[in-house]
């Protein structure tokens, strides 16, 4: 009986695993000169309140398409849910305060962009951050 319970528990755990939240990392291209970011710096960039580092170098932003990874990223970094973030960025863009992040169609396209633009940063699940990108910040 105990074995059966354990087996059921293992099965449920395995089924639930793909739904569990994966760690998300903020990345740049592998040859990017950008330094590691603090959570505060990354939050300022992704709220559109800053677009330069203290040394004056410009940081441009990339987004992933609307979906679970994007929602989780903003929730963890800015503590704002998807509706709050959409309203926030609408205000930032249409008041002319910030240019919107470039939206990649996929992680693969994001990697291409990161390789071509040294000052571009993006985010992706940690498992997809391979040797073509450099991790600037790991979200909790």
């Amino acid at each position: 009986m105990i074995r059966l319970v354990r087996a059921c528990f293992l099965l449920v755990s395995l089924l639930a695993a793909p739904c569990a939240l994966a760690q998300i990392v903020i990345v740049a291209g592998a040859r990017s000169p950008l330094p590691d970011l603090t959570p505060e710096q990354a939050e300022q960039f992704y709220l559109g309140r800053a677009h330069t580092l203290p040394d004056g170098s410009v940081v441009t932003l990339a987004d992933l398409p609307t979906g679970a990874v994007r929602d989780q990223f903003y929730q963890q970094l800015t503590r704002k849910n998807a509706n709050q973030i959409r309203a926030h960025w609408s205000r930032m863009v249409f008041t002319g305060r910030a240019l919107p992040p470039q939206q990649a169609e996929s992680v693969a396209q994001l990697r291409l962009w990161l390789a071509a633009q040294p000052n571009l940063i993006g985010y992706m699940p940690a498992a997809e951050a391979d040797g073509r990108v450099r991790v600037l910040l790991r979200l909790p």
Partner: protein
Amino acid sequence: MSLMRQLRRKAATILLALAVAPAHAETDAPASPPRFELSGFGTLGAVTTDDKDVWFTRYGVNFPGTKDPDFSPDTLVGVQGSLRLTPYNDITLQGLVREDGDASQDPQLTLAFFRQTLAPGLSMRLGRVRVPFFMLSDSLYVNYANPWVRPPVEVYGLNPFNDLDGIDFIYNGRLGAFDIEIHPYYGGGRIPFPQGKARLKEVFGVNLGLSRGDFSLHLGHGEGTFTLERGDTLFLAVSNILQLTGQGGVIADLSGTHGRTRFDSVGVQWDDGSWQLIGEFARRKTNRYVVSAHGWYLSLGRRFGPVMPYVVVAHQTLDEQFAEARLPPGRLAAAWNLFQVSRNNAQRSVTLGARWELAAYAAVKAEVTQARPDDDAWGSYAPRGDAQTTRIGGRTLNTFSLSLDLSF
């Protein structure tokens, strides 16, 4: 039509034409400067009142409607294009189509600026931006970004100006545990209204924003000179009366080119993802032409998944009329009284509403407002029929608003 107006119309028309052209599309090519961004926002909104002898009106924003329900107070579409020239500068144009205070639906150029990053956290914009007198002024028409159908008229009706042609600086930095934004600006603007024009000139102001986590605070001050040249029938009649009664000097307080004004505002926002609290106090002080008044609102909302019901309490109070005259009782005094009452927007209101996130970047909102204009005011209403015989002040008026907001 002035050359400037023709040029503005032309530029706005070109921008809107760009919006429907298939020239812009996301590609696999890595985006690097120069890069063009195209985006837009829009609202389809209908408004009706339960008493059919008045129109709901946003003074300075729309012209009282001719159809019920009225689509003119909130319906609009805006298209924005930004061209990033280098990592340090860009050009942004925004065109907006909506009804203005002159009942015109010509495209308007609402943003047209060149931005330069001057230092880390500091940027300069040169050209046309939005007048940022109050906390939400520069996103007044981006209804998707606001929780309500429209920002409360008791506060946002205090400033009818939209455009600021000039220069501003925006600095973002840290102050201890707070994110700070300092936003000084200088410039002028104009608004059309029936048989008249108003100009804002030599306006200087500064806004201060502090935010930490779910909380943000706004402080704003702006002041400058303004002109208001009236030509409407009631003004001309009142001017004649004043001349005939030997009070011609009062006319200089009703219409002219020597006004001074100042705007002050304090606003707070708290939004933890579930509860949303927004409050603001704003004051307009003038020396002539329009009343001095102050207003405030308090809004509380609670999110239940995609739906957020909210309640808003708002109040605008007259501080000072802009002119005084002594007229014998009867028709002459009635005309003078009507002139002043029709330019007083003081009222109190309670609004119950709900916002539903229909889809990503689409929201439906519905709200019912019970408003009571002060006894000597029209509040945010205008008579449908004879202004002399339609009493608005002191009545309780129910207004229903329904809107669909998009951001794309």
